[in-house]
């Protein structure tokens, strides 16, 4: 397999004076060349922390990685020195952040900001880099690219700014793009423009994308494979159709049911997930979803579920699907709910 990125048993802790928050608690996943992997979860589940640790962008003082490894093209990122890192950041891995206003430098013309990457990573001359920048601005669908180059970020609209951020991330033609909620700050009509653009560029450049989002609609439109995260762990992982059409983890089910369907009638209630995610300063001993899970058993409180493999691509961490679990009522309830 042509694995581009491999994350193994990654733990990330945030330390403050009186508490240690375990933001990521042992996750493993991989990204193949040219595929789109979506990481889905609620706020605070650790999805952004995962993305930032791949780029090693987390504050070194307050944040530690006690365990785990991140291999990019076979190279270990967690122990990498700054100098080596800067050869990867921006050049091999690009990143698009949620808020296009705060991820651009307000005192620099956007053309120069885009060209900066080429000058630093590829040793282009200023003139050549500028020409390249104009070319990529055109590619991200901005009319009149020459004129746009000379503008400052505040002179552009939110959608335009996000296009600039994407252009910046793509200028060095990275192998992997990490998009952290790239469309959350945008309006729906602009969102679909940006998603179409990302998809088109991804296919043209055959790059891999890690898409981090909380919006399952965006996932359905955009991704090949999906990881569902909850409270710092990946609870279910599978291809798009496995996750959407045969979800097995109660949390995945709950997420899918809590959004209105196309043909949802007004009298039908939405199925909400009761309660809130746990506090990760003191993570629960067993499965973190137990207090909110309608199918929870005694074992869920006590022990963390092990990985159950359903197919080559589909696996989950849930006691209900464990081979040792009672085959009767509970499993039926889940599959019934899945069919409904």
């Amino acid at each position, binding site marked *: 397999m042509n694995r581009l990125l491999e994350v193994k048993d990654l733990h990330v802790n945030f330390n403050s004076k009186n508490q240690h928050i375990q933001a990521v608690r042992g996750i493993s996943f991989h990204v193949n060349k040219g595929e789109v992997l979506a990481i889905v979860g*609620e706020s605070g589940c650790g999805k952004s922390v995962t993305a930032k640790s791949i780029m090693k962008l987390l504050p070194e003082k307050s944040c530690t990685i006690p365990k785990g490894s991140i291999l990019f093209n076979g190279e270990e990122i967690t122990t990498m020195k700054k100098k080596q890192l800067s050869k990867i950041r921006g050049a091999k891995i690009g990143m698009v952040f949620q808020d296009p206003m705060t991820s651009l430098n307000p005192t620099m013309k956007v053309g120069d900001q885009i060209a900066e990457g080429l000058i630093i990573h590829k040793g282009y001359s200023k003139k050549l880099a500028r020409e390249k920048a104009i070319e990529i601005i055109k590619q991200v669908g901005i009319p009149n690219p020459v004129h746009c180059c000379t503008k400052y970020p505040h002179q552009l609209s939110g959608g*335009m700014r996000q296009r600039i951020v994407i252009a910046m991330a793509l200028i060095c033609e990275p192998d992997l793009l990490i998009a952290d909620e790239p469309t959350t700050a945008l309006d729906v*009509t602009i969102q679909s423009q940006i998603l179409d653009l990302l998809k088109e560029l991804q296919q043209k450049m055959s790059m891999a994308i890690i898409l981090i989002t909380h919006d399952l609609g965006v996932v359905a439109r955009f991704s090949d494979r999906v990881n569902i995260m909850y409270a710092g762990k990946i609870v279910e992982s599978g291809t798009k159709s496995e996750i959407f059409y045969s979800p097995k983890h109660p949390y995945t089910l709950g997420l899918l049911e809590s959004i209105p369907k*196309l043909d949802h009638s007004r009298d039908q209630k939405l199925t909400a*997930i009761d309660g809130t995610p746990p506090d990760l300063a003191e993570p629960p001993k067993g499965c973190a979803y137990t207090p909110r899970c309608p199918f929870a058993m005694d074992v869920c409180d006590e022990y963390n579920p092990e990985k159950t493999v359903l197919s080559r691509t589909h696996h989950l961490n849930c006691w209900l699907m464990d081979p040792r679990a009672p085959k009767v009522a509970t499993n039926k309830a889940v599959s019934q709910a899945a069919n409904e």
Partner: protein
Amino acid sequence: MEKILEVKKLTKHFQVGKGLELKAVDDISFDIYEGETLGLVGESGCGKSTIGRTIIRLYQATSGKVFYKGKDVHTLSKNDKKDFHKNMQMIFQDPYASLNPRMTVADIIAEGLDIHRLKKGEERKEAVYQLLETVGLKRKHANRYAHEFSGGQRQRIGIARALAVEPQFIIADEPISALDVSVQAQIVNLLIELQQKKKLTYLFISHDLSMVKLISDRIGVMYLGNLMELATSKRLNENPLHPYTTSLLKAIPIADPAIEEAKEKITISGDLPSPTNPPSGCVYQTRCSLATEMCFQQKPILKQVDKQHFVACHLA
């Protein structure tokens, strides 16, 4: 059904310096009937929140009138004003910014009761407990502060505060957009349940058309300060007439890969024009793929095409 609120030719302009005028709401009229939910949708900057805020008198209207039960809300006498605010309450978008961090939950919820001198002492305390339970919180939460709660719980406190004075009409301005998906459904269910129990009328403002579709009886679609289409939820979904509504419906990503893959590419291109300098003729003309000569010159008026269906488009 009886009209509870009438909005007539409401216009709200803001002065934004250098003699520029931002036309946030431009000549909008609609009615809200007792016991229904009217949803207002649109992209950011389309004026949907301004309408809500002008109705509840947080802004003075530039021109036009708002009638609540036959009385013009912008020219109320002092006594009527108090009465009006008791009947109309608001739920805000950001549950972090809209609760006073220095007040206990009990004081936040009972502030309305104190201002209107409705309940005191034991009675007030009991009312707070009742409200907490109504919105799905516990009695023991009454003496805590807002920062001790999660986003969803805070939004519940905001709802309890709105309900305290027993209003008939609630304006919910993006009440769920700051919340996580799984919590959004909790709050929407709560709002629907409260409406049925207390016979409330809602003006539900949101950019999330899929949630608005679920909760609203009728939906108004706004664009750049104008009402483009107004129809029952069902009709708008099945038979949208305005090209903007059609592309808005198409632009929402649906959590179903098969539907997403079958979808044709989105037709809406370009950005929202600036509301300080709106396009001539129809405001949507710059992004509309069907625009004709007439659209550039003449502004379409909201016309009735069916009993419950209004649309502002030359082509419909």
